[in-house]
């Protein structure tokens, strides 16, 4: 059948996780390019409530398993079901979120299917490959692109001979884009007792403490930070706009938090959180030692300040002399212009 299959992770609140919606969006595009269909799996309880969401993202067939033992997630039952769907439908590509659940599940499934798996991809595109040894030409393989070696190299990984081509992707990497035209997915209900061996329920969950979602800027690969120099709560909205576009989070200096521009959960520095994003952009942040302690491990640093001698400039890769209100709209404009 050679479709694209996405594992939809179900959140504590019973929704499809954001990372899975992003993968449905990416999966749909990959499916359209090859003129194949997008399929999804839903393993949990009352998954019928989530069919409409799948339809919004253009899913063709949903493989659903409903059983009280499937939530909260444990590895083996989900792995057995996922492997079963892969065997039955032979997808060319299977995508799983690089969340704690997905990174626990995907390797188990890949091992069972003896197929290749690439973790934490930052880009997925089709490409060709010629294998000299066997004189074989492969068309439209999935190029799975990911950083390795502590971010010192970017590797392109392919799986020429095994299917599905499996990859995990972190939340926020792919764009969340519903389909132009919603579908009404066909539903295939899976018989859990037939597919999952009772021994796969060996792990017993004794206790759980799950907190409601809150802002955690630590995990973000891009931090758009503002200082007191940004000026106001309203002016911070521009930072949020840029952060949304770049797939990042907004951070702040202590002075900006003390001034009430944003809450403490976004404070970067000694008395806030320590961040190590790929890219840190500071607007109107002078760069006191306490602030720098929380961000100087960032891979790339941009400092935007009207003061050319701001201490943050010394550790910045780019120092832009200017005002946030002038620079942000240009960053937005030129990011859009340069990214396809």
């Amino acid at each position, binding site marked *: 059948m050679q479709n694209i299959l996405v594992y939809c992770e179900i959140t504590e609140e019973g929704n499809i996780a954001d990372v899975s919606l992003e993968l449905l969006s990416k999966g749909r595009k990959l499916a359209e390019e090859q003129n194949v269909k997008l399929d999804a799996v839903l393993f949990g309880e009352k998954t019928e409530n989530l069919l409409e969401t799948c339809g919004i993202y253009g899913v063709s067939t949903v493989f659903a398993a409903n059983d009280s033992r499937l939530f909260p997630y444990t590895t*083996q039952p989900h792995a057995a079901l996922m492997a079963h769907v892969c065997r039955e439908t032979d997808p060319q590509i299977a995508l799983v979120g690089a969340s704690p659940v997905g990174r*626990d599940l995907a390797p188990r499934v890949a091992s*069972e299917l003896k197929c290749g798996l690439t*973790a934490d991809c930052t880009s997925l595109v089709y490409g060709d490959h010629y294998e000299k040894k066997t004189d074989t030409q492969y068309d439209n393989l999935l190029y799975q692109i990911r950083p390795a070696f502590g971010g010192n190299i970017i590797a392109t990984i392919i799986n020429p001979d095994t299917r599905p081509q499996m990859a995990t992707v972190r939340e926020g990497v792919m764009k969340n884009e519903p389909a132009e035209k919603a579908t009404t997915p066909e539903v295939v209900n899976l018989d859990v007792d037939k597919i999952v061996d009772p021994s796969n329920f060996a792990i017993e969950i004794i206790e759980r403490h799950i907190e409601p979602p809150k802002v955690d800027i630590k995990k973000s690969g891009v931090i758009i930070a503002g200082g007191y120099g940004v000026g106001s709560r309203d002016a911070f909205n521009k930072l949020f706009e840029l952060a949304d576009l770049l797939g990042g989070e907004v951070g702040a200096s202590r002075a900006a938090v003390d001034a009430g521009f944003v809450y403490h959960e976004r404070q970067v520095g000694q008395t806030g959180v320590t961040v190590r994003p790929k890219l840190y952009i500071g607007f109107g942040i002078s760069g006191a030692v306490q602030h720098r302690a929380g961000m100087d491990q960032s891979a790339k640093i941009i400092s935007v300040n009207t003061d050319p001698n701001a201490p943050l400039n010394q550790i910045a890769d780019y120092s832009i002399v200017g005002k946030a209100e002038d620079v942000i709209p240009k960053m937005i404009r030129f990011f859009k212009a*340069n990214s396809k």
Partner: protein
Amino acid sequence: MSFRIIVMAKQVPDTRNVGKDAMKADGTVNRGALPAIYNPEDLNALEFALKIKDRVEGAEIVVVTMGPSRASGIIREAMYRGADSGILLTDRKFAGSDTLATSYALSMAIRKLEPYDIVIAGRQAIDRDTAQVGPQTAEKLNLPQITYAETLENIDEKSISVKRRLERGVETVKSPLPVLITVNASAEECRPRHAKRVMQFKHSRTVTELQEESRDYTELFDQRPYLTIQEWSVEDVNADVANLGLSGSPTKVKKIENVVFKAKETRVLSDSDDDIDGMMKDLIDSHVLG
């Protein structure tokens, strides 16, 4: 009661501290020049195993690592900190293995160490960050798996309870034995070397190392068999070569691009369209954005 804990460990290049010496003239990383270290989360895993050993009388810890000859260094390090013995899985035929082939090789070595009660590994290694080898080894051995372990709650002859770290909280799970556990960086740090153990194990060597060093340790090693670090080849673990190395690895590296690091040299820009356009292009081209 015999109780065997197998700890998987990996020697990795220290990608966290890329110093000047490890940079090539073109600004790329010279991977060969990075110091080889004990993978950090594997040390958390060793501590987790030691905690179990502290609680279970008669428990022994066997460290298993796959790598070149020099990877025996981390077996010695583990023994200094409390492991009882180690196996170095080493053979040219293992080279080029991806996570699937690696987990196959490790699982074959672990099968040879039956009966065992628990297999423990770090969540992931810092050179590739895949977190795949643990779960894949569990699948090959048909064991239940507990990933992201943080705290040992309870252990007896038949079962273990572990608190694991999730995205937004914690969860305590109970598993029958045997089980495979991967340990998170948020778990307790590994205890330091023990002076007495350093004295006891400092001469431990693999046969290859003994041959390379011209000193004759024959008598010492006859008296103290625990000083021999065993080396296992593909044949020793009865592995099928077809499942190893490049031929046993479904993933292939199509291309490697070095990320070019420039010395921290600040580029001073104005807020002009040209300057900001150029900067955004650089960020996208170097995969920082997009």
